[in-house]
């Protein structure tokens, strides 16, 4: 981790006041016991519940530099693309931590790096080890079982099959899916997200469809709507065998410390018998 922008670095090596614009990393901070250090979060932060009481400083498109500065942080966790913000903070002598969006390995590395930044290396190592162990456990549980061709959908226009967004062969969703004992139907696509046409969905013919949603029934997407929308694709094996699962909860789509929970959720949906 490199201090952003040139010049002196007057802030202490170990951070004491942290502002985090990236929800996944806010979760990571709380997971490694650095929660009390957090003084500001993004407006999309939901977890853990304590963050709702913290001041909001905006998000990816609209970070409020004034607000951030008024909280007197010595470390700001920002998105890699927020280069202007990071430059500004660098000029103010504030260290920034740039979020890298990649697979599970990166998530675990990031947690470790946050441990170093906040002086909680031991806790971070513990968390990381724990996550690795749980992922290995899932692998073990589903080992040897049939790995069905699975479509992992994380967005869809409610009530129809328009605007379906599915996981491609890259990224943490794909990796979690594979660990949970499935073969991603779009494993061959070297992108994180795919927007398949109806024709592509029929051609790929997944055996299982897993839909993940951050929010639940509020959106109008219930299990009933899900089944009904997919039923149009009568020849798709997942539709014929009824292996369509709707999982809700933001832990499923946040690349943070709850990824083991998400992986287990996938595994339970895919291999219910292994969890009896």
């Amino acid at each position, binding site marked *: 981790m490199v201090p952003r922008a040139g010049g002196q670095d007057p802030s202490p090596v170990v951070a004491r006041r942290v502002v985090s614009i990236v929800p996944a990393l806010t979760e990571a901070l709380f997971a490694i016991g650095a929660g009390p250090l957090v003084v500001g979060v993004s407006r999309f932060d939901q977890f853990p519940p304590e963050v709702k009481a913290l001041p909001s400083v905006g998000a990816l*498109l*609209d970070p409020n530099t004034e607000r951030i500065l008024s909280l007197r942080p010595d470390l700001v966790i920002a998105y890699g693309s927020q280069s202007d913000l990071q430059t500004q903070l660098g000029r103010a002598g504030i260290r920034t931590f740039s979020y890298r969006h990649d697979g599970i390995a990166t998530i675990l590395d990031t947690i470790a790096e946050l441990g170093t930044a906040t002086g909680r290396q031991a806790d971070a190592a513990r968390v990381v080890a724990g996550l690795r162990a749980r992922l290995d456990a899932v692998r073990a549980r589903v080992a040897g079982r049939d790995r069905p061709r699975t479509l992992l959908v994380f967005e869809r226009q*409610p009530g*129809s099959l328009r605007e379906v967004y599915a996981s491609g062969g890259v990224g943490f969703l794909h990796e979690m899916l594979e660990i949970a004992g499935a073969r991603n139907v779009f494993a061959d696509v070297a992108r994180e997200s795919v927007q398949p*046409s*109806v*024709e592509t969905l029929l051609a790929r013919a997944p055996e299982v469809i897993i839909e993940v949603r951050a929010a639940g029934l509020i959106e*109008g997407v219930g299990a009933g709507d899900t089944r009904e929308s997919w039923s149009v694709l009568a*020849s798709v094996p997942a539709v014929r065998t009824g292996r369509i699962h709707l999982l809700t909860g933001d832990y499923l789509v946040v690349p943070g410390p709850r990824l083991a929970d998400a992986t287990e959720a996938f595994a339970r949906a895919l291999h219910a018998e292994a969890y009896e």
Partner: protein
Amino acid sequence: MSVTDGVARSGPPVAGLALPRASVRTRLLTAVGGFGTLAAAACILAPLLGTTEISLARVFDRSIPFQDNVDAQIFFVARLPRVLAAALVGSTLASAGVVFQAMLRNPLATPFTLGVSAGASLGAMLVIVLGGTLATGALAFGPFTPVAAASLAGAAMAASLVYWLATRRGYAMSTSVLLLAGVTLNSFFSALIMFVQYIADFTQVYRAARWLMGDLDVGGFGALGSALPLVLVAFALFARLPSSLNLLSLGDDAAAARGVDVVRAQRLAFFSASLATSAAVSLAGPIGFVGIVVPHLVRLIVGVDHRVVLPAAALFGAAFLVLCDLVARTLLAPVEIPVGVVTAMIGGPFFLWLLVRRG
């Protein structure tokens, strides 16, 4: 003395590609026959092509149950509805373009000039972005999805607002007020759309941007069935317009002096074209350029008499969008280009060419 005497001494032909100076009846039949064949051919050819190899024999093999027949599913669930949606939307937007151009007396008008599409887009944006916090699922009614229902509502609101602004003085619609109101509404709604996107989160912004690029992949006939009644009503109303459109394009007084009930004709034109545009945009998002390229191309071929231009544009619009969507879904296979991008890439150079030609 007959008109044909004048032909021998006539000056340079009017259009670039001139049909023989036959009567309007003949020209109408020829145009409908020609463009109709083109549209039918496009609708028959397009479902045969796509990113996946399918065997036509298997598609129509009755011995395989439909649920098991992947080839048939691809043909009847994925491709055919999509092609028909393209035909419907293309036809609708092209006709609406012709009507708005005549009504506003401006060949550069589009179905989106008066803000109807901006209203529709705003409605759709709101549902996409607020979908996570409000019970937008309740917005769905009948075969309409929440997004489609909201965009219809937004379009209706925009059209009503423009109508009210343009008819406040009581008598006939002032075209200049119409244009001003439309342009203002477009700006206002665009600003609102930007604001809504600004406060949205990552995926919502992307979904919203994607919707604005247009999408014809309807999947099954449900969405088509919901838009069809609206479009049929609009077309039924269009059928009564063409000769009035000719006269309206001369000016309100000139039209009135030749027996046109100007107020009624304007209302009919505005309502039917707004209805058509709303239906098209709520089905497939705001696909640009169809409503302006097709009328211009058609006029180059058949002349400017609206009694021929309107039906010809409806048919050619269908063929045009079917072919654009075919390109969109096969050119860079397996990646799909948004259809709005394809129509823009054709429309832009076309207009440059028109400008150069005129100059």
